[in-house]
């Protein structure tokens, strides 16, 4: 695995040095917003994943370009989402595009991607989840 890193680092030498400063600024911006609103970054991610799941049931979306953030509006914090829509799903309960599942040791698995929206199939879904553990 170390070799992969060596290769990646070698490649990054070709990119302009400002890259890392920009990355730092972006990371910092995200972290500070979350700090101020007291939502942990991890929870933010969970929220994002669930939102993708819910929205995807009705709209086919470009989840890679989904923007989600807490913004200051006047004296309030507002959750603002910008979700590019590709098309509207006529059929409800279709398997969503992305299968986002992170392997976190012991962390709560995100409650995303129900196979269907039909409550009668929920038992089936839960059984599947357990198999992954």
């Amino acid at each position: 695995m170390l070799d992969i890193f060596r290769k990646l680092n070698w490649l990054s030498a070709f990119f302009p040095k400002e890259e890392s400063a920009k990355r730092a600024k972006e990371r910092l911006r995200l972290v500070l917003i979350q700090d101020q609103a007291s939502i942990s970054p991890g929870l933010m991610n969970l929220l994002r994943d669930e939102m993708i799941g819910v929205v995807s049931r009705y709209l086919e979306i470009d989840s890679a370009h989904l923007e989600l953030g807490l913004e200051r509006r006047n004296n309030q914090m507002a959750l603002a989402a910008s979700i590019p829509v590709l098309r509207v799903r006529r059929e409800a309960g279709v398997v969503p595009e992305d299968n986002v599942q992170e392997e976190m040791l012991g962390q709560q698995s995100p409650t995303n991607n129900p196979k269907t929206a039909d409550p009668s199939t929920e038992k089936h879904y839960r059984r599947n989840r357990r198999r992954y553990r």
Partner: protein
Amino acid sequence: MGKVLVITSGKGGVGKTTATANLGAGLAMAGNKVVLIDTDIGLRNLDLVLGLENRIVFDLVDVVQGKCRSYKQAMIKDKRFESLFLIPASQSKDKEDVNPEQMRQLCNQLKEEFDYILIDCPAGIEHGFKNAVAGAHEAIVVTTPEVSAVRDADRIIGLLEASEKYNPRLILNRVRKEMVRKGQMMAIEDVQEILNIALLGIVPEDEAIVVSSNKGEPAVMDPGSKAGQAYRQIVERIQNPSLVYTPDLNGNGSFLTKLFKFFAKAEA
């Protein structure tokens, strides 16, 4: 049975968190099972340095207060390494929300599962420091070659030595060889005249550290970084304590003072 090491300094900004991240990553790269604990409650940054800031769900305070079932839920696995984990600090709580007894218990639990437990200590000598050292067997003291940093390190060593169990070892950080050569910066011998503890390693000032922190990738992963190289060597010495570090001494510093110090150490 794992070893619990606390990384402390007294003064802030000398590189404790960077050292913790790099030593942790380095030990994991060498095949050990490592967990890092950020005890700087209220001002967490170990997660940021490791680039794991967006993976935090639970934190140390949640663990000790029982808000999550066990430490396993708060622990974040760093996917770049086989066996590196982080228990982050809380950003919104208080250092008083954790007490030394809780830290001791947590470390005892972690000892069963991990080879190395590294505790990132906050600056100062108050509650945060007491929490951080409570569960530790050994201490690593980080300082820079700068008067107030050395003074604070001396204070910390005095507190650690009073307990007789920590075997404090020194990392001298952010050394600029050119400035030392010109006599504009203290050399390791000057620092040791005051601190006089076993030396673990010397880490040079390196731009790569800034870049690595920007990206959230510890410098120890970067084969081109001089600081990363120094950390890799320190990791070897941590794993193998019999490797004695002999920095090249220039013969500065009085013979008589050293002679008397030798007697003082022998009889203390």
